[in-house]
């Protein structure tokens, strides 16, 4: 047997654009959460969706990960159409939701086993990848501890490990460092960078931390009220915005409001809750 066949990964089309959307829109009743989004994200890059709570970032991710049907428009992820080929999309992507995605009543290793098996990673490969993932995120010693005893930073790292066991070509990270202290945040950044370099994964992350976007992203889209109001590399955006000192200033320039404003009661409650359980 060909050694390359030890991975279950079916032949995936090599596409120049890991994510492409055309007029992608989603409304909830009268509210247009995502307003005709046109994005083109090149394979192998780290792309940041930046904006305050309620800007439409999470709704965009939910549509791209097949969790939510678009109201109109099209999107392809890893070359597959999210509406017509949802199973192919799911096989090709990894997802770390904003909320908790590991089970506190299982150990770290058990959490990894469950997902490796749901993605049909064959046994030998599974054991190898789980050990490798645990080592990469520095949880080898804590692998057999119940996750409910983990710190917020450890949980985030475990979630990232869980999302890459099946070697996704596109990875979605929704607010990957919300509620983490600066040390844990830095550790997560290092891992995200490492995923790009060692697996060649395309990464789409949402954040409302400007520092995070500057640190990680090749390209950034500033979202405001469901629309992209500015797009470019962090440096480009800063120079376009009247030579702004920081991305924060650039944001105010493009969106006309500070990143701290915006968001509904529900968003705020959710962010606080996420922060509390990770903190």
């Amino acid at each position, binding site marked *: 047997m060909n050694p390359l*066949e030890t991975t279950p990964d*079916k*032949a995936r089309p090599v596409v120049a654009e890991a994510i492409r959307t055309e007029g992608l829109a989603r409304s909830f009743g009268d509210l247009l959460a995502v307003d005709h989004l046109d994005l083109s994200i090149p394979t192998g890059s780290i792309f940041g969706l930046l904006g305050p709570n309620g800007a439409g970032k999470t709704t965009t991710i939910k549509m791209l*990960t*097949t*969790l*939510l049907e678009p109201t109109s428009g099209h999107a392809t992820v890893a070359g597959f159409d999210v509406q017509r080929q949802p*199973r192919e999309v*799911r*096989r090709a*992507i990894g*997802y770390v*939701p*904003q*909320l*908790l*995605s*590991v*089970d506190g*009543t*299982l150990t770290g290793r*058990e959490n990894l086993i*469950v*997902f490796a*098996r*749901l*993605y*049909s990673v064959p046994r030998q490969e599974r054991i190898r990848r789980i050990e490798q993932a645990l080592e990469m995120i520095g949880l080898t010693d804590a692998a057999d501890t*119940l996750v409910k005893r983990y710190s917020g930073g450890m949980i985030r790292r475990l979630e990232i490990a*869980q999302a890459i066991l099946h070697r996704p070509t596109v990875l979605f990270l929704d607010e990957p460092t919300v509620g983490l202290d600066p040390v844990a945040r830095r550790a997560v950044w290092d891992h995200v960078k490492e995923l790009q370099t060692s697996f060649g994964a395309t990464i789409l992350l949402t954040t409302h931390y400007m520092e995070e976007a500057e640190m990680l992203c090749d390209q950034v889209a500033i979202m405001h009220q469901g629309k992209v109001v500015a797009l470019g590399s962090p440096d480009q955006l800063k120079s376009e915005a009247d030579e702004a000192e920081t991305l924060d200033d650039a944001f105010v320039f493009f969106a006309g409001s500070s990143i701290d404003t915006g968001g509904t009661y529900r968003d705020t409650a959710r962010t606080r809750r996420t922060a509390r359980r990770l903190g």
Partner: protein
Amino acid sequence: MTPQGHDARPAALADAHQSTRDGALLRGVQACRDFVKQVLIIAWIETRKIKRDPTELVTRAIQPILWLCIFGVVMNRARAIPTGSLSYLDFMVPGILSQSVLFIAIFYGIALIWERDLGLLHKFLVSPAYRGALVTGKAISAGLRAMSQAIIVSLLGLLMGAHLNFSPVAIMGMLLFIVLGAAIFSTFSLVIACIVKTRERFMGIGQVLTMPLFFASNAIYPLSLMPAWLKLVARINPLTYQVDALRTLMIRGGQSSMGISLDLGVELLVLIGLIMLGSWMYPKAIR
């Protein structure tokens, strides 16, 4: 070898048709294997949880103990309910077992709301696992949890002098019906959880459902005592078929009033219907 690999093989025109048919068959077999594996891994999670926190199994024993030791003892003495050739205790043990399985299963959907609120559900739904496999896995999980009730109620019945049937076939059959019953009511519960979406509303509805399901069944009195309208309700209540099957299997001299194959058929059909409904509702729970 992957089905895709098979398809990609250059085939002579003559067996091209045969080859695509083989490909489809291979994909079908692979899909079934994946489905079963996914069901098993979801159920495996439950075994870990039961092992780590068995307290629920103990607290769940209290209700059947009260029913058997108080209600059962009094009614046994009163001889107010005609139960044919069986003593009232013999008649009641399978009914109480079914009831405690129902009570475990009907609140099982709360786990879904919990997982939704945390974010675990999002993660499962983004995986390529079949929705049906996720729902079936949950149903089997409830079945595993309910099995403990079989042990508790059987032991209790034995202590009180019920005439239990311990043939291996009867025990296997009893366990099968317990898993089936728990699967039915837990999937029903999951469907409700998908609709109501909050814990508070779910608990309210769960409370409202359990008693009618229990009383409109043959669990503690035979159908023959019921007025016609209630008899009709009991006939469409899956719990009735579950009790009938358990009464036939568990009790020496127990006789089925509906036929065990009808019991099995009805339960399987209801379960398949509910799983299909659940698989359709499941992804909607996160909205």
